[in-house]
């Protein structure tokens, strides 16, 4: 038995996919449903598997703000560059941050000019790097949503326990339900259902969407990332819309529970506290960010080095803000595929492979 592909291939069966598409079309009838996939990993999976055209006329999928890299404001990149350039810190980052444009440069461009930056797979690798390099300050660029927050919190707690004092984190951690609430309330977005992220939900639990579902009377379905998960999730949403329901349902029961991962939640609550934070293209959303708590202040790079992340609304021709809110599709942006391509991204939605514009460009979905 090949264990390595279990629970992936079974959720890609083409015959079942066709049946689900038939069921969705039948349930949608002549009322095409407008749904938002909140998460960038869903965006890529939908683009790659060609689900969008297969559902045309029955379901319109718009992409939400769920690519952490895309919504990280340029002020964050500027602060990271300043930490490396002016404070001499050794930066450790996930690879997909490198090409995100700051106000004047990107980490990749600065690296080409000598900025000391290592790409790591896990935040714990950055703690290990700091433990090996005691003479240098190591700053981990802690970007992500609830899925990544426990890993970043785990690294901070590990550094505290092992007294790795030359380790700190520039935090730009965000929480999804708060952003969903803002989008659900935006009359220009006009969505009828949320396809909720798989792994964010593994941490926070499906019940975390109850306030959004109730306050905005909007159905929410947690779904896995494989094609059958996505189609089943869409089917569950379309059925709820037909019934006029606004429940929270969970397709991804094999991983996400109603309450989520309590141990991870406790760790996050110990290391972080909620704060207002700016989202690129969207603006400041109340209590949608996590900053490092007083208890772990020694590991907060902003305070430690006096380099604050300053949020200013962008002024650019890039329409990422409208793309991230699902107001337009990438192909509606005049720069798409012209002045803005993955090799030379103009806007952040083209930078990360999970960016909506990049996914549409690569898989020809626009």
């Amino acid at each position: 038995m090949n264990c390595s592909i279990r629970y992936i291939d079974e959720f890609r069966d083409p015959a079942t996919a066709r049946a689900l598409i038939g069921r969705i079309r039948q349930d949608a009838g002549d009322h095409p449903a407008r749904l938002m996939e909140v998460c960038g990993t869903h965006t890529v999976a939908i683009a790659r598997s060609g689900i969008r055209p297969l559902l045309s006329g029955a379901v319109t999928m718009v992409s939400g703000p769920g690519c952490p890299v895309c919504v990280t404001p340029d002020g964050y990149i500027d602060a990271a560059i300043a930490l490396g350039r002016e404070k001499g810190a050794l930066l450790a980052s996930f690879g997909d941050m490198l090409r995100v444009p700051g106000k004047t440069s990107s980490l990749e461009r600065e690296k080409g000019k000598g900025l000391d930056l290592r790409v790591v797979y896990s935040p714990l690798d950055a703690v290990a790097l700091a433990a090996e390099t005691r003479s240098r300050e190591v700053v981990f660029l802690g970007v992500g949503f609830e899925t990544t927050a426990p890993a970043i919190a785990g690294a901070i707690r590990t550094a505290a326990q092992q007294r790795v004092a030359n380790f700190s984190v520039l935090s730009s951690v965000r929480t999804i339900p708060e952003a969903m609430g803002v989008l659900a309330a935006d009359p220009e977005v006009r969505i009828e259902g949320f396809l909720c992220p798989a792994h964010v939900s593994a941490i926070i639990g499906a019940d975390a969407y109850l306030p959004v579902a109730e306050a905005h009377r909007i159905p929410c379905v947690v779904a896995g990332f494989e094609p059958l998960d996505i189609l089943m999730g869409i089917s569950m949403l379309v059925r709820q819309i037909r019934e006029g329901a606004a429940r929270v349902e969970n397709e991804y029961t094999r991983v996400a529970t109603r309450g989520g991962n309590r141990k991870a939640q406790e760790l996050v609550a110990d290391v972080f506290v909620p704060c207002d934070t700016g989202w690129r293209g969207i603006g400041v959303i109340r209590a949608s960010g996590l900053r490092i708590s007083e208890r772990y202040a020694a590991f907060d790079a902003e305070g430690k080095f006096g380099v604050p992340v300053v949020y200013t609304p962008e002024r650019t021709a890039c329409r990422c803000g409208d793309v991230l809110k699902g107001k337009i599709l990438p192909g509606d942006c005049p720069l798409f595929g012209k002045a803005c391509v993955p090799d030379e991204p103009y806007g952040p939605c083209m930078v990360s492979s999970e960016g909506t514009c990049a996914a549409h460009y690569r898989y020809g979905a626009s």
Partner: protein
Amino acid sequence: MCLGVPARVMERSGDAAIVELGGVRREISLMLLDDVSVGEWVIVHAGFAIERLSEEEAEQTLSLLREIADAF
């Protein structure tokens, strides 16, 4: 970025475990989960097992999907 992959725990000592991930063995942290045993499936993200993968629940979802496929 929130991609997580199913992996099987092959060895563990304390909070550190070796998992098999698409044919590759990798060290990950089990800090976020209590009492994981060797042989269990977990979802790995950024070097951490973020949650267990329930084989029983997976089978239930698959049989529901099969029912839908048969009905169509």
